[in-house]
């Protein structure tokens, strides 16, 4: 039983990465109707940002946690303004290709600079273990989970308790109609994109001390995150977070008890969810 709980808890830790990434994808999709294929590359850039800050400026993890998401969020808003925005009026396929291209460019630039092998990152901010009563767990993993939960809660409060949150939720639910109510949704598109980018970068920084930092790290992860977003319901912010943590937990337990399915369990779950609820667990049918 203890081992089961321990594994479930561990699943929540990997789920915290899914949740942060899926949350960003969901708000971006909701606001722009763009599936951001560059999301995995941003996660990778986040981790490399931490490596770069440590190597070139001697700045440790806490600085990285603060600076990297902000810097990448700014870069994201610029990319949105200069590139993505111009294609929003066209078929979504154009932005699908654009963001996919951005992902490949980022990945190849990193590969040119750092090669394809992993980079060292020796700046874990906390070491040792916590005694969680029933079992011990590495402090850093507990910290990751805690921070992710706090960020997800903060986003939830922002969305439900503030005027900006109401506007964003309205724009996600009915983008066109919201403009007819005197709200310049276009004004919110860019900051929301930057915000989603910042969340992915944050996940990347959090990954650096516990995962291999290499140019391909986001490409593999993001496929799972797309499945998470679909399971949660495309554009459902709440659904993406819940699905993120749930999938993390199921995957961890699946690895242990059904190793045969470890590669496919997420996609099987996605198929089942889509059969029963085509719009995902918390998704709604699309309006204009």
């Amino acid at each position, binding site marked *: 039983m203890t081992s089961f709980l321990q594994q479930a808890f561990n699943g929540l830790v990997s789920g915290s990465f899914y949740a942060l990434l899926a949350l960003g994808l969901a708000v971006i999709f909701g606001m722009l109707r763009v599936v951001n294929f560059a999301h995995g590359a941003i996660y990778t850039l986040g981790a490399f940002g931490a490596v770069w800050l440590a190597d070139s400026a001697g700045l440790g993890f806490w600085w990285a946690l603060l600076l990297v998401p902000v810097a990448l969020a700014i870069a994201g808003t610029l990319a949105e303004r200069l590139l993505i925005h111009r294609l929003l009026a066209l078929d979504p396929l154009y932005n699908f290709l654009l963001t996919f291209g951005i992902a490949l460019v980022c990945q190849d630039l990193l590969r040119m600079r750092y090669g394809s092998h992993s980079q060292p990152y020796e700046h874990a901010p906390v070491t040792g273990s916590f005694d969680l009563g029933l079992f011990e767990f590495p402090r850093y993993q507990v910290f990751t989970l805690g921070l992710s939960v706090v960020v997800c809660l903060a986003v939830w409060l922002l969305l439900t308790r503030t005027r900006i949150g*109401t*506007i964003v*939720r*309205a724009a996600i*639910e*009915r983008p*066109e*109609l*919201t*403009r*007819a*109510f*005197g*709200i*310049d*949704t276009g004004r919110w598109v860019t900051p929301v994109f930057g915000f989603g980018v910042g969340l992915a970068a944050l996940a990347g920084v959090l990954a650096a001390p516990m995962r291999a930092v290499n140019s391909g790290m986001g490409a593999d992860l993001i496929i799972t995150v797309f499945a998470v977003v679909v399971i949660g319901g495309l554009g459902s912010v709440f659904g993406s977070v819940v699905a993120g943590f749930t999938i993390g937990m199921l995957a961890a337990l699946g690895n242990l008890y059904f190793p045969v399915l470890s590669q496919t369990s997420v996609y099987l779950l996605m198929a089942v969810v889509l059969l029963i609820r085509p719009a995902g667990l918390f998704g*709604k049918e699309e*309006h204009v």
Partner: protein
Amino acid sequence: MLDITGVSASYGEARVLDEVTLQVGDGEVVTLVGRNGAGKTTLLRCVMGLHRAMTGRVVFAGRDLTAVPPHRRARLGIGYVPDDRGIYAGLSVEENLTLPPATLASAWPLPRIYDTFPVLATRRRLPGGKLSGGEHQMLALARVLRTGARVLLCDEPTEGLAPIIVDRIGEILREVKRDGVAVLLVEQNLRFAATVADRHYLLAQGRIVESLRNAEVRQREGELLAYLGL
């Protein structure tokens, strides 16, 4: 108040509005009558700026709206009640009500809204998705009134509603009219239209084919209903 001159619009290849010209004055209620697909909804969307007019222009309170984006039109005082009511299922009743900024001098304060629509006061914390059809329509109307809009674009506000609620909507529209607000009403319910409207335009295949007075509508009701296929 609202001057529509020579507006044409199309969806892809199909032309849905053909040189439509009409006026709505202060405190006037004007209905658009026509079969499904005649272009009534598209005309409202063109006025709101949600659909691009290929030719012609819309002038509101002396101002040409051609280059004005939808959110600016709303802020100038055009209130939109779409055919599906446009209620946000994920927002509470009060969030729905307060979403459009109330920037105009004529804006209704929230207490007046709750006074006029007591049902909304009791449901204010409920998500919009949980309301009944009649409550949806009340909320949609209340929402544009709160902004103080000077022109209301109402797309079939009585469709599918119980007679008692239709009556209530009539009362509200008459109250609004007394305040000098102009209303452009898309309506299939001719009897209802005749109780609130001053004039009627008959729209067929994107063109205005006839302009009717209230008395004419009452006289020719049978003929018109047959034409509309009702």
